[in-house]
């Protein structure tokens, strides 16, 4: 299981990557592994408002449906239509091709308050998972 350096994380297993003045959001390798085969991804429309901590979409796997929680507040600038068409991309490439949305952050400070890769690793160790 991969925890990628340089990304920000949430305790709900989303990741966030800063790219210029935009951020890219997806779910972690741990999240896709827990869900196993993802069969459906529901994403907002570009222009939608993200509210930190609120659900902005959902990921449906064979065994469960999980909400996607916004790591930060902001406005959606683009969504990854490819994962909506072929959700298996999220299982194959959670940190690259399987990204969910791009957004303009409303408050840059919010990004700083998210977990670092080391914090997220510690969280998974608490769940008894990171050793694998």
């Amino acid at each position, binding site marked *: 299981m991969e925890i990628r350096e340089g990304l920000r994380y949430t305790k709900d297993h989303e990741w966030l990557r800063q790219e210029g003045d935009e951020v890219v959001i997806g779910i972690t390798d741990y999240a896709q592994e827990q869900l*196993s085969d993802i*069969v*459906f991804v529901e994403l907002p429309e570009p222009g939608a408002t993200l509210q930190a901590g609120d659900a902005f979409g959902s990921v449906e796997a*064979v065994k469960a449906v999980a909400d996607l929680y916004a790591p930060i507040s902001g406005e959606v600038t683009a969504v990854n239509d490819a994962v909506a068409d072929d959700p*298996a991309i999220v299982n194959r490439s959670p940190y690259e091709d399987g990204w969910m949305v791009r957004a303009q952050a409303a408050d840059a400070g919010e990004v700083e308050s998210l977990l670092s890769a080391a914090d997220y690793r510690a969280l998974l160790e608490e769940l*008894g998972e990171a050793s694998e």
Partner: protein
Amino acid sequence: MAETKTPEPQQSQSTEAGCPPRRSVEVIYERSLPGHRGYRLPRGAAARWEAAIDALPETLRRKRPPELPEVTEPEVVRHFIGISLLNHHVDRSLYPLGSCTMKYNPKINEELARLPGFALLHPQAPETSLQGILALLWRFERELACVVGMAAVSLHPAAGAQGEMLGMKLFRAYHRHRGHAKRKVLVPDSAHGTNPASVVLSGFEPVQIASGADGRMDLGAIRAAIDDDTAGIMVTNPNTLGLFEKEIAAVAEAIHAVDGLVYMDGANLNALVGLAQPGAMGVDIVHLNLHKTFSTPHGGGGPGSGPVAVTAELEPFLPVPIVERTEAGYRLEHGRPLSVGPLHPWCGNAGVVVRAFAYLHSLGAEGLAAVSRAAIVNANYLMKQVADSFPVAKREWCMHEFISSASWTKKHKVRVMDVAKRLLDFGFHAPTVSFPLIVPDALMIEPTETETRPTLDRFAAALREIAREVRESPERVQQAPHSTCVGRLNEAAAARRLRVRWQAAKERDDAGGA
């Protein structure tokens, strides 16, 4: 005392058992032969039928006959008997599907339901010729109310989820009547997914409440979440971890303090019938699953029944029509100004209610209490037997079901679903897996009261054997099932590329084999 032997997984089924292994099952169209038929209308009837069709306007008439399979009666019977032999059902073996209460369906239920006075009724018949069934519905409503300690019952909901839906409609009707505009319904994180779904469908907003460390509702967290906008709470008792919610009365008191309502999901009532009454716990609305607790057929999506019981205060809001007893006999009353309206066209699945009525009356009050006691004893016995191979989530006495975890198998690259599939090779239905969500890799096991000790021992021995296989030959488990008619199905592909229409092989090839 008989010694429990390590069970052997079944070998591949022989052709006599219904189907050679690893072959696709024929659909009935593949048995079709031109000109074959099972029944022919008498000559006079056929002529009248054709005349009736000719009388229809041109636009309503078919241009070509429907594509129906052309088969004789024996071919139809063999087809469906063949399919039924491939099926796992409770008449065949243990079906420990947690939360679903797959208990044995006593045959006397069927005998009663097949009495011509019930079986041949038309739901649109005039009330004068429905007196028997109306009397049964009227009486059963009152008896169920007695079982759960509530004032009134509606038998209309056709399933548990529709019972929940009615529950939320009652929340809405009650609050509207009181002049409230409350929006929030609290739902513990151990709830069945249908609970928050019913909340949303009814225009409320679910607020998820994290369970406490003991797996039960956290009274502090619930009190903290309650405010004037709280319409009520949906609780499952015993909860999905198979634990009794000890704080339910205090939760109800806190909810009632803001004029909220308490809905109890009665999916797990098999642990309580005859022993404890939701009415005494401060519950305002509870649904019962007749297809679980009251032994009517369950599974395969067949007709269910999810009656809803309410307090006297909520009775005026129940759906119409209501069965009324008058001096002149039984009748259906539609005039209830506060009613949420009709929910089901014919007072619910009445044929299912007849079966549950037979069950209740064959047991009586003492029998019902014995059911719950035996269900609880069986679950606790099995929990102790299973705990050494698949650790139990909460180490305390359980009610009618318990949760084991298959987390440890992950280090052998075996998932909980693989364990479930392997159980099929031992002749058992798999338990519910990956639920409740608050236990990782959950196996939700509910043996029910109707299983004998040797059956429970065989099931526990099968799980022990599978645990050994996980360590010593994990591929055997990863690739299971091996003895069923079809092997491991690709569930992800089935969900991603849904095909609901059968196409003949030739047509499929023409379409590019997609």
